[in-house]
């Protein structure tokens, strides 16, 4: 692992809570409000870490394990992305399956923790979350397959690193479609509008928020941090596809990555202010639309 990769990893870990802050700030400014400060999530995490925890009597160890497993799997998943634009710290053949599997592990643990409370609200959120996830996974794989066909590599470090920069001139149109599809996936997996509204607190309209209703204190801090890290990870995916950084020098590549993720957060804020949340039975249609875009990218490559 080069020092740029290590530095990028550190920056990602420390700056992740700022990413949702940028999205919220953009949305507030566009809707005419001042909005919360960009660093709000840091204050929230600090406050939560100093609090105690309340556990429900119906819960078992599964409830306590949920946030821990989710965050640990996300941190391991970060190691498979080429943050410096060239190669990833860890990688082997077929590790895109590993990436998807780690995200699934985190989701499994968190949803089970939600069901452990025995409340119907968490059950509602869990049911919707797994429905959306069932359509998000094949879409993610379609995007990955488009990258596989473009670069000829089956490892994430290769698919998003140097071979991608080589493939851009030839397959630019297809890769742009993949990037758009990945952005829609970002909105779906991180529960942003139009899939889910992170700001609403009406029980019947929440998806992700409602699964974590009963977590408190440090557990909630872990979940919030994990959510921010996941948003940053998907931002890294989108930036890597749109802006191949293999030809840039190490420090510049990292700076471009940071700027790119910030730009993605701004884009998320813009989308959140111009669109309304979709009706729940339209969300699979949105994800199938993203999948169709990615498959069009694949068709262009095979042409």
């Amino acid at each position, binding site marked *: 692992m080069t020092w740029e990769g290590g530095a990028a990893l550190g920056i990602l870990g420390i700056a992740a809570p700022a990413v949702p802050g940028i999205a919220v700030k953009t949305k507030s400014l566009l809707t005419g409000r001042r909005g919360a400060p960009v660093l709000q999530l840091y204050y929230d995490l600090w406050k939560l870490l100093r609090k105690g925890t309340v556990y429900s009597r119906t819960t078992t160890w599964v409830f306590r394990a949920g946030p821990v497993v989710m965050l640990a799997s996300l941190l391991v998943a970060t190691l498979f992305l080429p943050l410096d634009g060239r190669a990833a710290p860890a990688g082997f053949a077929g590790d895109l399956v590993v990436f998807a599997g780690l995200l699934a592990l985190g989701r499994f643990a968190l949803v089970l923790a939600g069901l452990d409370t025995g409340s119907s609200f968490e059950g509602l959120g869990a049911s919707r979350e797994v429905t959306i996830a069932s359509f998000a996974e094949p879409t993610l794989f379609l995007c990955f397959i488009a990258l596989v066909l473009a670069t000829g590599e089956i490892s994430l470090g290769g698919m998003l690193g140097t071979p991608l920069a080589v493939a851009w001139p030839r397959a630019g*149109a297809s890769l742009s479609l993949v990037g758009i599809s990945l952005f829609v996936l970002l909105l779906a997996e991180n529960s942003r509008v139009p899939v889910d509204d992170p700001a609403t607190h009406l029980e019947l309209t929440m998806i992700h928020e409602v699964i974590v209703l009963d977590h408190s204190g440090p557990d909630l801090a872990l979940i919030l941090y994990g959510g921010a890290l996941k948003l940053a990870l998907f931002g890294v995916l989108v930036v890597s596809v749109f802006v191949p950084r293999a030809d840039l020098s190490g420090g510049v590549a990292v700076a471009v990555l940071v700027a790119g993720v910030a730009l993605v957060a701004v884009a998320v804020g813009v989308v959140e202010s111009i669109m309304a949340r979709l009706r729940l039975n*339209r969300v*699979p*249609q949105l994800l*199938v*639309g993203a*999948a*169709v*875009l990615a*498959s*069009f990218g694949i*068709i*262009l490559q*095979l*042409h």
Partner: protein
Amino acid sequence: MHNAARLVLLLIVLSDLAVLGTTRLTSCIRGLAAQGVLLGLLPLLLAPQLSVHAVSLGLGTVAVKAVVLPWFLARAIREAAVRREIEPLVGFIGSQLLGALAIALAFAIASRLPLPPTQQSLLVPVSLATLMIGFLVLTTRRKALMQVVGYLILENGIYLFGLTHTESVPFLIELGVLLDVFVGVFIMGIVVFHINREFDSLDSTRLTELSD
């Protein structure tokens, strides 16, 4: 020029997919209008040099496909007071998947058709895809207005296919293509008007009541 034409063709496919995926009829008409603008740009990008002929063809296409027809359709929507499409016969997810299948088939077939080679290799596949998607919209949607939109997309596909032969085809054929569109829309407009007047709705599945 080559890359710009390629970009325009890709945007045409995206506009097809947008029409397939949306429920609001006004969005469909906006997609159709966008498609008209793109189709108007295309002869200008494909012609080896800008001539009066190419420019006038482009302007005429834009005028008809992007201005007149969408305005006519929007007026029909206002008079019939419909806003949204109800669930199509194959479902929204099904129509999107069929659209993707149509695009795949178009690309697969186009490479096997015995056509003279054109310099823009995407033109034939995109025209076939647009044709098939237009047919898909025409057959699976319930509202008569959506069927008109589907017919127009079908005609756009045929127009695209005709663009492969602009060099060897005289001006008369292009006029004939445009006239074809006019006649089709005219008939569809009359039919829509009569359906609406007779049944107070534009749901074409209710046409089966005629046979009772």
